[in-house]
């Protein structure tokens, strides 16, 4: 796996996991004035979710989940793809546009720094807040000696 690919996986992941409203809100300025050709309009379908027996063993199918996918092409010729949980077509369309822009060296570093990183920070913040709340329910059980003898 090349470094470019790892970087791309990262921004795709952040955009997919981010809250749709927040992402759409923060990202609108980046696509202003940019043209994209829609290669595959956002479409909703399913992906089968797989688990592992015992969490680590052989695979099995748990059930489906909804997914929206989209492909666009930027004027510079970059193809932007998106595959996102749920049925939010705006989220998928915007993520595909941003995926194309982020492959463009002219936009990449600025967009990474001012869009992807803040989104990532928000995700981390939310996760930390959740973890902290759960940590407050950490329990220490004491076993008591039964008074039988």
């Amino acid at each position, binding site marked *: *796996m090349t470094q470019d*690919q790892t970087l791309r*996986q990262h921004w*795709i*992941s952040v955009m*997919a*996991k981010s809250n749709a409203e927040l992402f759409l809100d923060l990202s609108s300025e980046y696509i202003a004035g940019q043209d994209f050709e829609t290669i595959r309009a956002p479409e*909703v*379908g*399913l*992906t*089968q*979710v*797989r*688990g*592992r*027996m*015992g*969490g*680590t*063993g*052989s*695979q*099995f*199918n*748990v*059930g*489906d*989940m*909804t*997914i929206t*996918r989209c492909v666009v092409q930027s004027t510079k010729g970059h193809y932007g*793809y998106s*595959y*996102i*949980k*749920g*049925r939010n077509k705006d989220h998928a369309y915007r993520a595909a546009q941003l995926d194309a822009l982020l492959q463009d060296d002219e936009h990449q570093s600025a967009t990474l720094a001012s869009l992807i990183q803040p989104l990532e920070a928000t995700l981390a913040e939310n*996760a930390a807040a*959740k*973890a*902290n*709340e*759960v*940590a*407050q*329910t*950490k*329990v*220490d*059980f004491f*076993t008591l000696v039964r008074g039988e003898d």
Partner: protein
Amino acid sequence: MYVAVKGGESAIQNAHKLLDKTRRGDLTFPELSVAQVQKQLPLAVSRVMTEGSVYDPELAALAIKQSAGDLVEAIFLLRAYRTTLSRFYSSEPIDTTTMQVARRISATFKDLPGGQLLGPTFDYTHRLLDFTLLADGRTPEELANITSQDNSESESESIPRVLEMLEKEALMVAEEDEQKTPADITQDPPSYPCNRSARLQALARGDEGFLLALGYSTQRGYGRNHPFAGEIRTGDVTVSLLPEELGFSIDIGTIEVTECEMINGFSKLEDGDIKFTRGYGLAFGMNERKTLSMALIDRALQAEKYGEERVSPAQQEEFILSHCDNVEAAGFVSHLKLPHYVDFQSELELLRRLRAERTTPDAASGDQS
């Protein structure tokens, strides 16, 4: 058998209007929104997503609203909607070991790495009706801050799997990855005996009540398998897939799942070794009772592997898997409501004829022979 009938259009239309009206209820009360159902009935949503076999909290909430709270009907609605979507991909297997846990407990080890995290649970509540909820509920301030007296350990530790610790000590049957494409009962109906991947898929979609009763039966002695809840986790896992056009795997989001790993009685294995055995349960959302039941049955159905005689209901694979789906079951039971007029007429005729024959002298003598 039922036969087609015609007519009744306006009666049916009106019945559906009446259903709409009944669902809406007293108009002096505000209408329940789908978002309220989604955000405030998360356990109902979890059950509908799991048995409806589509992870989509909003659609599940819509189904619950539409079915006026009848969860089996909601599951049916979601399954029906599911058939209108094409399946683009199969995900990479989710990794529950790296789950961001909302709850993690073990009934087998008091002290364990990562600790016991109770999370949002009904356990240790007194099951007394909470009249605060009948009044104004909790204020946002009351809900905002959850703090414990001992706030020192809030940094996250890694949370190893309990059963893996036993595996490492060679006390637990290991889960080997056979690297096979799992069966998909939505494409190929299972034939019996079926493999464990088909079985777990069927159980994941199976009716919670049915699985609960069967799991309970194993505890009461019908196919006893000496269970301990080795580890139960609920939390968020990342779903990834590998689109061919990209050639590398990507994350598409996170989903909430519940997992139960059961430690079951030890057994002599084929190679002569003695180890604990195991059962597994996995479901969408917060679904603890379901995953406990699923794990009990998963273990009960491994009877052959451990040389156990199949004598109890929970060990009968074909019986369980072909009756656990509540969409199929409710469908067939409910079809009894459809017009069976012709069918019943023939039964009626037959009975009348038999009874008439009995009262004639010939038939009466025939009866005595």
